[in-house]
Structures are given as C-alpha cells and as structure tokens.
C-alpha cells in the first residue's frame, strides 16, 4: 500500500481531481460500451417476440 490512510488515497497528493476524473470517465465509457449492446440485444429480441406473436395470430 503506498498510502497511509484512506483520505490520503482520495487526495492522491494534490492530484486527486485529475486522477479521479480520469478513472471516473474511464468507468463511464467502459460501462456505456457494455450497456449499449446489451440494451440493443434486449430491444431486438423484444421486437422479434412481438413480430412472432403477430405472425402466429394471422
């Protein structure tokens, strides 16, 4: 561990703003990249389910 306390860890020796901005942005971008295809797949499957039901009613 290179920090003595948790508050020192958060402060990052005066560079806290820069370090945590970077990692925050990184987390958001990574989560977005995972969420978009997952949501896309769910929406596509829902559309297909609706289409299948319509076809069965005919």
């Amino acid at each position, binding site marked *: *561990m*290179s*920090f003595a306390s948790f508050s020192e*860890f958060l402060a*990052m*020796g*005066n*560079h*806290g703003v*820069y*370090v945590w*901005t*970077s*990692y925050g*942005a*990184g987390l958001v*971008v*990574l989560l*977005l*990249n*995972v969420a978009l*295809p*997952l949501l*896309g*797949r769910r929406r*596509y*499957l829902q559309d*297909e*389910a609706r289409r*299948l039901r319509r076809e069965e009613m005919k």
Partner: protein
Amino acid sequence: MNWTWFHKLGSPKWFYEISGRWLPWLSGAAVVLLLVGSVWGLAFAPQDYQQGNSFRIIYLHVPTAILAQSIYVMLAVAGVVGLVWKMKLADVALQQAAPIGAWMTFLALLTGAVWGKPTWGAWWVWDARLTAMLILLFLYFGIIALGNAITNRDSAAKACAVLAIVGVVNIPIIKYSVEWWNTLHQPATFRLTEKPAMPPEMWLPLLVMVIGFYCFLGAVLLMRMRLEILKREARTSWVRAELRAQVEGRP
C-alpha cells in the same frame, strides 16, 4: 498450417455458436483483470518521483491508447479480408469494432488531457503525437459515418474497407511521432527489445490493465457482432430458430 478455422469464419452460424462459448470467459477475465489492475495501480504501485500520483493515470491512458491503435489495425485487416475474400463476417467485424475504437481513442485523448494539465501545465498542445491521435479519432468518425450513410450493404462495406486501409498510414505516424519530432509526449514505456525503464511494481499493473483491456475489447466486440449477425441474417432458418428459442426462453 491448418486453415480450416479461416474458412469456417465464412459461416456466421459457426461464428455465432463459437463466440457464445467464448463470451463468458472473456467477460469474466476482463472484469477480474481490470479490477485487479486498477486497484493495484491506484493503491499499491509506488508513486512517481517526478510526477507524484498523477502518473497513476497511465494505467488508463496507455491501455486505451494501445487499444485505439490496435483496433484501427484490426479494421484495416478486416478491410483487406473483406475485399479479397468477400467474407461477410469481415464487414460485421469492421463496423462493430469502429465505435469501440472511437471510444478508446476518445478516452486516451481525455485521460491524456487530464494528465497533461498537472504535468505539462496545459490540457492540450498541438504536439505531433496528440495531433495524430486526434486524426485517428476523425478517421474512426469517418468510417462510422460512411458505414451509416450508404444504404447498400455491399457498397458500404467496400467504402469502409478502403477508408480503413488508407487510414492505416496514420498508425506508424502515431507510433514514431515521439521519435521523429521533438515532442512533449514521453516515449514508449514498453519496448519489445528492452527491459522497461520502470520498476516491476509499476509496470506489472500496467501489463495487467493492457491484457484486461484486450479481453474487454474481445467481449464487447463479440457482443456487438453477435447482435449484428442476428439482424443481418434474420431471414435464415438458423437465426429464426435461435430467435424463437431466445424469445420463448423468457415469456
């Protein structure tokens, strides 16, 4: 060398099945490696004697920059494969990898700017490395826009493949920009031929992050490609069967 795997790639059905088996492993590896790498880099790696703790941005900046460039090379390779062998999967890979590449380039530029402020005293300088990375971002935008603008799938595939291949000239420019020109940007941390200039406590977490980011790329790319294959091959009997199974799997 056995080339059957290459011929099998011509079949979207085969790819869909095999990628379904790889996906959980790649996702699991990505989550574990990225968690381990960032905790290690943020809390356990020693601080830099000059840059202090701001250097910890390296664990995000370098992997995203490496990915930004390797994804572009991948696009060019997929472009060649698509043009020469007329492989449908190559265009799927190209179109689906481009947005991930754009995001990675964006993240590399953003973390670079945030790192540049405390280190160089400026968010942005028109330095060779930075400018070449910005051009890379615009190349990604160009490919994405071109792919969406042309309605005919085959023409779009050809146009994007050509743009990807032409644009690859930018990659060596990015790579060697720190050696060809006098730049503010520091030279590469890793070299294939020499030992890293950093102590292992510093570069090991970086290595973990780089491998983690590659696993992340693999997982996200497979997810995107699988969805695109379902959409493009919607008329084939195997996709219909797969959709029916998926839809009925959760009522």
